[in-house]
């Protein structure tokens, strides 16, 4: 991880709910330390004391050749509101890459993956699918959105051709990605590793579905963070431990966990 200043290269709405921001990677560019799927950065969105804390954002892409990192985020409050107002050339204060990514999970590279995304979870899932395909694997992305106007319009979707679900059946399949999973036949899911990022009920649903079929499942979980580097113990996730339970830090041991480690509540 490194703390660095850089400039915004682009920041545009990709649907009426999501934005994609790209910035020049001025961090460590050695191959072992560039952003990987599941990892995140924290951005300081204001030089003033409100909003105060840095905000965590998962990487949605990293172009090693051009040194460009991308994030996809939802405008939901004052901090992401300020972020959405940034334009090309605006300075950015970045710490990253942070956290444990999918590449640090057992049995990586996974070969054949189902990337299940809900909401802004589609950023890291697209990144994961891209990396899997680049490594010679097979990736099917399933992207759950609330409604048609939330469905992102980005070039990557033309190549990855995800299955899209909408809660209100205004686009693609009606329902959630879990409804899509429920209809898969054994032939379709044999040998697949399930990766998920999105709201906790979606991640839990992917875990349950995978467990019932004996498939490995890795989830990227969200938690409110203060420091983002493992110091404050603010972003705890309840996990199984010898003799009971323990807390793991979403920012350090996570955000990506093997789903069977999580004590789902």
């Amino acid at each position, binding site marked *: 991880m490194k703390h660095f200043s850089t400039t915004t290269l682009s920041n545009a709405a990709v649907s009426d709910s999501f934005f994609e921001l790209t910035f020049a990677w001025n961090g460590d560019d050695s191959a072992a330390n560039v952003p990987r799927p599941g990892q995140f950065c924290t951005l300081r969105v204001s030089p003033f*004391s409100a909003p105060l804390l840095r905000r965590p954002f998962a990487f949605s892409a990293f172009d090693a050749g051009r040194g460009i990192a991308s994030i996809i985020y939802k405008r939901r409050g004052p901090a992401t509101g300020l972020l959405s107002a940034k334009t090309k050339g605006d300075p950015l204060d970045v710490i990253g890459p942070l956290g444990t990514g999918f590449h640090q999970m057992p049995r990586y590279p996974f070969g054949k993956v189902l990337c299940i995304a809900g909401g802004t979870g589609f950023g890291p899932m697209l990144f994961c699918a891209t990396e899997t395909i680049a490594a010679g694997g097979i990736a099917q992305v399933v992207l759950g959105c609330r409604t048609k106007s939330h469905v992102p319009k980005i070039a990557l979707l033309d190549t990855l051709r995800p299955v899209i679900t909408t809660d209100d059946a205004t686009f693609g399949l009606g329902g959630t990605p879990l409804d899509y999973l429920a209809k898969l036949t054994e032939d379709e899911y044999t040998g697949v590793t399930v990766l998920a990022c999105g709201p906790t009920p979606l991640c839990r649903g992917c875990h349950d579905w995978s467990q019932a079929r004996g498939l490995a499942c890795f989830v990227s979980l969200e938690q409110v963070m203060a420091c983002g*580097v*493992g110091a*404050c113990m603010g972003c705890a996730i309840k996990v199984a431990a010898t003799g009971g339970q323990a807390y793991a830090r979403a920012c350090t041991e996570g955000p990506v966990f093997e789903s069977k480690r999580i004590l789902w509540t």
Partner: protein
Amino acid sequence: MDLSVAIGSTTLSNPVGVASGTFGYGSEYEDLIDFSAIGALYTKAVTLAPRPGNDMPRIVETPSGILNSIGLANVGVERFLSEKMPYCARLPCAIIVNVAGASIDEYGMVVDRLEGSDAISGYEINISCPNVKHGGMAFGTDPATVTDLTANLRKRTKRPLIVKLTPNVTDIALIARAAQDGGADAVSCINTLVGMVIDVSAKRPVLPLRTGGLSGPAIRPIGVAATFAVSRAVAIPVIGVGGIASGNDALEYLLAGASAIQIGTANFVDPSTAAQVLAGIRAFAEREKMTCIKDFHQFIPR
């Protein structure tokens, strides 16, 4: 300009510390900061047994501040010594271990165990955590208990004992005097203030224990006023803490009577805050032709 600060038998190379609970055990910030710019690292609180900490959520942002309810999550004194202290021992800054407990005996046993480690510069006695059911703030609000606890620990160590005060009292100067009476070498002033945020749509407090500890720029004027009052009530050094994010903020505390300061919540916002604060203090002191930290204390009358 001599920026060093004497606390009991220890001398800190400069007055800027990083506050307990905001800097882990140091290693978390290894890639991000230069530890030689820090006078002292105050570790995450250490208790006798490991503590898992409180349920989630533990953090909620408030206007220019945060409300936390971590619950002294820590690895316990044995794992602190075997897993965390070897790293701390290599750092160029002073290591002050923050000690917490649910009883006077527990504080004593933790200090006894830590006495075996040569690399520890002193202890900050946490009698002000608002987020645990037993101990913590309950100790820090009663003057007689503060004197007893401090005197008990005084018998166990010659190292500096810094008592961390809670602002959740009517008269913080009274508690500071009680710590001094028990043999404290310094006081840290202040820990977080009790606060509550309510989720209106759910009609219940956001934090599982309902209240948490408020920190950040929002509490700075409270910390400065407390430092002013305490520094006039005791003869031992006062370490100012609360909402410091810039050199100017730290200068407020030093002018109010602090001999050193700690950066807390601002570490989360910008890990290089301590280095910037030290540069700000140094530039001001040189401009004002000061020769030592005590020179800051001459301007505001008692």
